[in-house]
């Protein structure tokens, strides 16, 4: 069987056994994104460290996703792609890298890969803000756009999000 439903074997592999899922304790950055149209939600956590050359890298990464097969698979794939990369390198990961790693996504599911890429850039943005570092202009622009969508999704899930935020603080 090469396909399950509308998905490639690779998508299903990642969906069945996603990598790096779950909540991270004391993350350095969190990216919380949602798709205002379909209603999927993705939360991405990163821990930042340094490599031998002293460059900042993504030392650890985890995700939590409320969404379809494609949303879960793209979340998993982006954690694999980003782990160990420098922040600059991680920022360059785009939806095409994600789609390629999954052996393709149905056209109607491409927005899930956009969501995953957005979650990662938001987590990096969050880290840079928290550590009072300079935000590259491209990242700032992306953040502005995602922020607008986030307001819609936060309204949709406000009760659930409130409970989770409380748990985060504990």
């Amino acid at each position, binding site marked *: 069987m090469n396909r399950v439903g509308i998905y490639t074997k690779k998508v299903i592999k990642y969906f069945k056994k996603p990598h790096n899922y779950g909540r991270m304790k004391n993350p350095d950055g969190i990216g919380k994104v949602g798709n205002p149209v379909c209603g999927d939600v993705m939360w991405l956590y990163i821990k930042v460290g340094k490599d031998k050359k002293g460059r900042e890298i993504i030392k650890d990464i985890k995700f939590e*996703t409320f969404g379809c097969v494609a949303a879960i698979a793209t979340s998993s794939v982006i954690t694999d792609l980003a782990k160990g990369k420098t922040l600059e390198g991680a920022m360059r990961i785009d939806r095409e890298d994600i789609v390629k790693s999954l052996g393709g996504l149905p056209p109607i599911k491409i927005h899930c890969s956009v969501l995953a890429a957005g979650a990662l850039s938001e987590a990096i943005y969050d880290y840079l803000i928290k550590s009072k570092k300079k935000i590259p202009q491209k990242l700032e622009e992306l953040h502005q756009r995602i922020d607008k969508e986030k307001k819609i999704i936060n309204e949709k899930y406000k009760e659930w999000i409130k409970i989770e935020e409380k748990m985060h603080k504990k």
Partner: protein
Amino acid sequence: MPRKLKKIYLDYAATTPVDPRVARAMLPYFTKKFGNTMSLHSFGQEAKQALEESREVVANLIGAKPNEIIFTSSATESNNLALKGIALARRSLGGGGHIIISSIEHPCIMESAKWLEKQGFRITRLPVDKYGFINPDDVKKAIKKETILVSVIHASNEIGTVQSIEEIGKICSKRGVYFHTDAVQSFGKIPIDVNKMNIDLLSASSHKMYGPKGAACLFIREGIKIEPILHGGGQEVGLRSSTVNVSAIVGFAKACEISKKEMKKEGERLTKLRDKLIKGVLKKIPNSYLNGHPQKRLPNNTNFWFKFVEGESIVIQLDLLGIAASTGSACSSVKLEPSHILMAIGLKHEQAHGSLRLTLGRWTTEKEIDYLLRVLPGIIKNLRKISPFKSNKKHE
């Protein structure tokens, strides 16, 4: 290699396998009795005879007269013909232009109504309560002088809610308004009597009741004027031109004959399985909810929503275990919108997002239900582990 999965089909509301008895009845009509019903020679007349005998059997299932049954190719076609055919006929008679439908109709009714709206007809869409019931009083109130047709789905294709058709029919009959019902999901599963229920038009489909795809019908009460949509050779008393699909119609009739004989016993068997499934899911899975009414639903329909998880993910996880199901989640729709039916019964977007429909049928066994009840809790649990929303401790 994983061992071969035994497949379990729990999506009978989508379509059903053809009953082998039906397939056998159809076979001669492909190779030997292949005539065109419009031909004068013996081949044609043989086909014509099969067609008329089939009409009688189908009519018999709902207490109609054979000449009140028009064969079509699909329920979508039947529903289009009912709405547009009545609307256009009334317009040519100089009648009014108001049509009442419910907010939980199948897309082919919703879209036909929308199209008629563009042609200048006025449409009222009646709300439903949390179980999906239309209040017959709302029908009474919505009927105006210009109202020409009320169309209400008999049993919901998604949540299985069975409407008080008889009551709605009575209201329409009193007010002199035609009453159409889309009975695709109920036809052959629960008793229907078009006279007792005051039904003027009724749509039904073969492939939802163990007949082949490509055959369906519209019951039109004698004396009702309706405009055809397909014009041509004048088949089906001019109401549906097209060469008649005799083999499929013979299959449809055979399926009706079997359903009529087995309806009562099969209904009781499925109701038992359905209730076991509902009870099991709600008991074994925390934060799970039933959509639709606990009892007033089709004997074969169940529909749930699970907090914090998404339906397409559940469907694919089940598929990987060999179980076929369906969902009303936005992620599974081509429009990326959640099911309008789940929204109409008051579910929020995130609740409809986690919906799962399991529909049973003639070959569903208790063993299959037991297997589903064994694997579904684990699937939901695992998806909740991945979900950011999980702090509700109940399920952990």
